[in-house]
């Protein structure tokens, strides 16, 4: 079974009701948005209930799916005729297979925990109900994205999560920075979405359909050039949504949103949609090695860029955002490797969903305790004050740097080793990335929880309420055991095989491969260096100027400067030119014309003298004219 299994039609059972997973949160969002202030009192509870209900349905669907033989685990539930239009006839259906159900469980599971956490985090926000409405909307859209059985459904979900992301980044729109960040995220994503749309157009013209089943099954029959075009277009979409180079710039700014949003949307789920798209479109990339190569290059470049950015940020959320970029870079790299990497990509995605969400929520817990402070230089020595947060964050931290036997160790190591076999250059770059990860995550951890306290005077750190700590604890269980559970004995690879196919050779990892040992070594070096610099030594309260490399990293590798120079300023010039042309040229013409007609009207009006004799005269002259004209025409 090297290729994916056949997709079978399904009806009945709980799988037949899987649309409920989307409908329930959507209903929640509708009630909360339409209900307005009347729902303020219980709105958050409804939001949580809808998300949990969706999770319960997902779990039952998952077990029902397990009841089928491996070859029968790709099941389509037809819902309705979405777009019956001539040659483009899109039937809306949900594709339940191991790949999508993995995402569904992650989205609803982690999503529900973050919903619960938000009850505490947003307790004092007057707009908490609206926040939960948007969260529900996000969950619904994200589920549609991963469950749709065709590219158009995916696109609808894709735009839906984009909308939810926009609304949530700008949730505190009274802050100009939040409004600007929301706008930036939306505009950058527009570029990516255009790529996705173009990709779908080419898919339709090539295959005459946009349903996954026929497109992916016939992918090998299309020419390599076409597949490369599709692959690159889809990759552009993936880059936008997953903050991969060159469309990475929005993610760091997106941290302006409330922290649960950063955890759910900008770490655990939405930003991984690009990885889902690439893995889902696997057969296209298999037929287009160039596109696949570009995917891996983008992945490696982003994992390094994100890691470098992470080293220089003092804002705890931005450092974590850099880390997110970097980790998604790993997933993208794995996804570009083909079937051998898919399982690792998705496994790392799931593990990352747990530990990154746990760390973001931990950061939120710290901020909650420190009057919403995000500057790590004003933290330090928080470990004794908030034990649970420290412990859960610590486990997430160990997981992400790949501490042996924790989640990240299994999944990231798998990616590095698989890359090593594929291309040693990329592999070693990934190893270096792991080393930098070790450094910046340790820096973040030590600066926040250890060393001497550098708190502001009015800070009184305290542990967060149970409604916030319990999600942390549950998430950290995932960050400890998730990786081992998925990777050991190729369990996850076997599980995913019906959906994405299986590599020709199963990867066999020696316990002490060169890559594995090297990775552990560089990570250890990174951690040690961070300990020397930020754990043992005094951390200055104000960031030192730093070398040009530090500045380079601090300024997001000049990503914004490049965007501004290449796109924003020429764009502004173009706008000004257009406005100038519109004011002088178009408006001048229109206004001139209007003035001409108005003037004519004013002059002609004088003909209407009100004297009946002049009216009679005009009738007489008109009659003469008519008779004359008649003669002229008649004698032509």
């Amino acid at each position: 079974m090297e290729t994916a299994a056949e997709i079978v039609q399904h009806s009945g059972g709980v799988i037949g009701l899987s649309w409920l997973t989307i409908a329930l949160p959507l209903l929640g969002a509708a009630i909360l948005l339409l209900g307005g202030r009347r729902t303020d009192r219980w709105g958050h509870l409804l939001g949580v209930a809808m998300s949990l209900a969706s999770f319960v349905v997902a779990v039952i669907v998952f077990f029902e799916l397990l009841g089928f033989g491996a070859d029968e685990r790709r099941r389509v539930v037809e819902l309705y005729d979405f777009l019956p239009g001539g040659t483009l006839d899109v039937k809306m259906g949900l594709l339940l297979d191991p790949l999508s159900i993995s995402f569904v469980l992650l989205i609803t599971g982690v999503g529900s925990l973050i919903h619960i956490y938000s009850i505490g985090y947003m307790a004092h926000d007057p707009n908490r109900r609206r926040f939960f409405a948007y969260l529900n909307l996000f969950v619904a859209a994200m589920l549609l994205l991963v469950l749709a059985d065709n590219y158009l459904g995916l696109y609808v979900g894709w735009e839906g999560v984009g909308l939810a992301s926009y609304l949530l980044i700008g949730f505190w729109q009274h802050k100009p920075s939040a409004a600007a960040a929301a706008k930036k995220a939306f505009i950058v994503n527009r570029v990516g979405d255009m790529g996705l749309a173009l990709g779908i157009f080419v898919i339709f013209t090539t295959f005459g359909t946009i349903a996954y089943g026929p497109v992916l099954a016939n992918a090998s029959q299309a020419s390599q050039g076409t597949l490369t075009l599709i692959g690159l277009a889809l990759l552009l979409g993936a880059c936008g949504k997953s903050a991969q180079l060159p469309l990475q710039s929005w993610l760091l700014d997106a941290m302006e949103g409330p922290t649960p949003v950063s955890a759910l949307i900008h770490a655990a789920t939405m930003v991984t949609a690009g990885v889902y798209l690439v893995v889902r479109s696997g057969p296209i990339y298999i037929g287009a090695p160039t596109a696949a190569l570009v995917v891996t290059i983008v992945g490696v470049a982003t994992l390094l860029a994100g890691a470098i950015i992470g080293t220089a940020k003092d804002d705890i959320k931005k450092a974590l955002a850099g880390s997110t970029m970097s980790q998604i870079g790993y997933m993208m790299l794995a996804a570009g490797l083909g079937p051998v990497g898919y399982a690792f990509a998705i496994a790392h995605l799931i593990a990352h969903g747990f530990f990154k969400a746990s760390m973001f929520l931990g950061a939120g817990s710290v901020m909650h305790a420190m009057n919403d402070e995000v500057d790590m230089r004003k933290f330090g020595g928080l470990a004794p004050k908030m034990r649970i947060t420290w412990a859960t964050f610590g486990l997430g931290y160990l997981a992400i740097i790949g501490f042996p036997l924790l989640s990240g160790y299994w999944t990231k190591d798998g990616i590095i080793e698989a890359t090593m076999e594929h291309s040693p250059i990329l592999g070693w770059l990934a190893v270096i990335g792991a080393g930098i990860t070790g450094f910046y995550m340790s820096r973040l951890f030590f600066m926040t929880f250890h060393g001497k306290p550098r708190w502001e005077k009015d800070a009184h750190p305290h542990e967060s309420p149970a409604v916030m700590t319990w999600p942390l604890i549950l998430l950290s269980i995932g960050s400890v055991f998730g990786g081992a559970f998925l990777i050991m004995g190729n369990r996850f690879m076997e599980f995913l095989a019906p959906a994405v196919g299986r590599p020709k050779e199963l990867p066999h990892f020696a316990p002490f491969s060169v890559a594995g040992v090297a990775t552990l070594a560089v990570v250890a070096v990174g951690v040690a260096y961070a300990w020397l610099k930020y754990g043992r030594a005094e951390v200055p309260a104000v960031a030192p100027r730093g070398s040009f490399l530090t500045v380079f990293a601090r300024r997001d590798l000049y990503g914004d400067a490049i965007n501004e120079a290449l796109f924003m300023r020429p764009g502004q010039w173009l706008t000004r030119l257009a406005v100038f042309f519109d004011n002088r040229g178009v408006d001048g013409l229109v206004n001139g014309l209007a003035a001409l007609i108005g003037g004519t009207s004013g002059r002609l009006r004088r003909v209407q003298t009100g004297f009946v004799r002049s009216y009679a005269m005009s009738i007489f002259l008109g009659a003469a004219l008519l008779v004359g004209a008649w003669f002229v025409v008649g004698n032509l």
Partner: protein
Amino acid sequence: MSTLTAAPITAPTIEYGELAPMLIIFGAAMIGVLVEAFTPRYLRKSIQMPITVLSMVGAFALTVWQGVRGVRSAAAMGAIAVDGPSLFIWGAILLLAIVSVLLINDDDHFVAEAAAVPGSAEEDQALSQGGAHTEIYPLVLFAVGGMMLFPAANDLLIMFVALEVMSLPLYLLCGLARRRRLLSQEAAMKYFLLGAFSSAFFLYGTALLYGFAGSVDLKAIATALSTVGGQDALLFIGAATLGVGLLFKIGAAPFQAWKPDVYQGSPTPITALMASGTLIAAFGALLRVFWVALGDLDAEWTPVLWGVAILTMVVGAVLAITQTDIKRMLAYSSIAHTGFLLTAVVATGKESQNANALSGILFYLLAYGFATVGAFAVVTMVRDPGGEAGHLSRWAGLGKRSPLLAGIFALFLLAFAGIPLTSGFFGKYAVFAAAVAGGAVQLVIVGVVTSAMAAFFYVRVIVLMFFSDPAPEGPTIAVPSMGTAAVVTLSAAATVVLGVFPQPVLDLAHTAAQSLFVR
């Protein structure tokens, strides 16, 4: 065929059954006159109103019945054509007349004592006694009867008689406005003088065409076109002057000058009746003359009507822009619409093409008629101490003070502008499509451009109503009587229904047009 030389005059056969709708109206008008003569003043209104409405409803029912029976004949020795277009036009005129009568029935529009000098003591006395002229009902009935006969006349003399029967009561009615008496009397005087002048043209044309063809029968004139030679001067001058009389009645440029003055000065309900009923009737007559009698002369008159249509559209749209009085603006708008309708008249050719053009014109006339009556009904409700608030500046901010009324008026304006989902859109589409099919593409381009210009002044009123601050001592909105409310509601409903589900009426117009005019 009637020849004046035939010695013994045989009594004509008259198909009373087929002419019944018209006869009912005329009969009711006669009864109305008798009522005026023999019943006490206080009873008259309560007798006249039912007679008027019932006769119209009855006539409408008979018209529908004729339509269902599929009557297509030239009745009264071929002098009156009862055919598809006639029946459709009768139905439309009767419907709009019923609606207008509901408006006319409102107190407060008509003068108490028409003979009193404006501003004199007699007038004050009549006003204080609460007098009212109930003669308006039979006058309206006569006018409506004339309107029905005019487009059905298959003979130029009958047509002339119909023209006068239609016009004379209207001249009178124009001068009966309760307020701004002088303006009203001036309007009546102008209308009468110019109407008489144009009737003279009509009659002169009839005479010349008789000289050419030896008959006033439309069919005989059509036959003569091919048989009589060497009489071009008679034919051309006759046809042209006949055309002047007809074009005057529809208000095409350069014969449009009376329209703004008359529309402004007349009592608004009468304006509504004229703007809808007279226009429909006159168009019917115009089409019958040009398509039946002069159908084979189209090579000559098409270019002339091209010019007239363009001039009419441009004059209507351009002059409307600088109008400051709502009724004058609607008058110029009516001129522009006349121009739009003329584009389809120009499109003659094969029979099927004629049928399409005709059905488009019929639909347009009905749609425009309802929107017009509705719009004038709204005008009657916006009042200043001295009468209706005519000046546009008084309408500023009306949307804030009376959103429902302003919204309905906006609906009518949008229908005039031809915005989709209103009746005006399909009307305009139908006539322009017919004109394009008839090869008059340039004409349609002018039509579209002038439509855009027209849209400007329609939308300007909407902007004025909804986006300007209300005038400090703005007009009051009269609480509508049952009749006025019904008129506004019916017209708005017709405008929306014809805009959303035009198909049934389009089909009806198409069926009516299919047989074209009987010859």
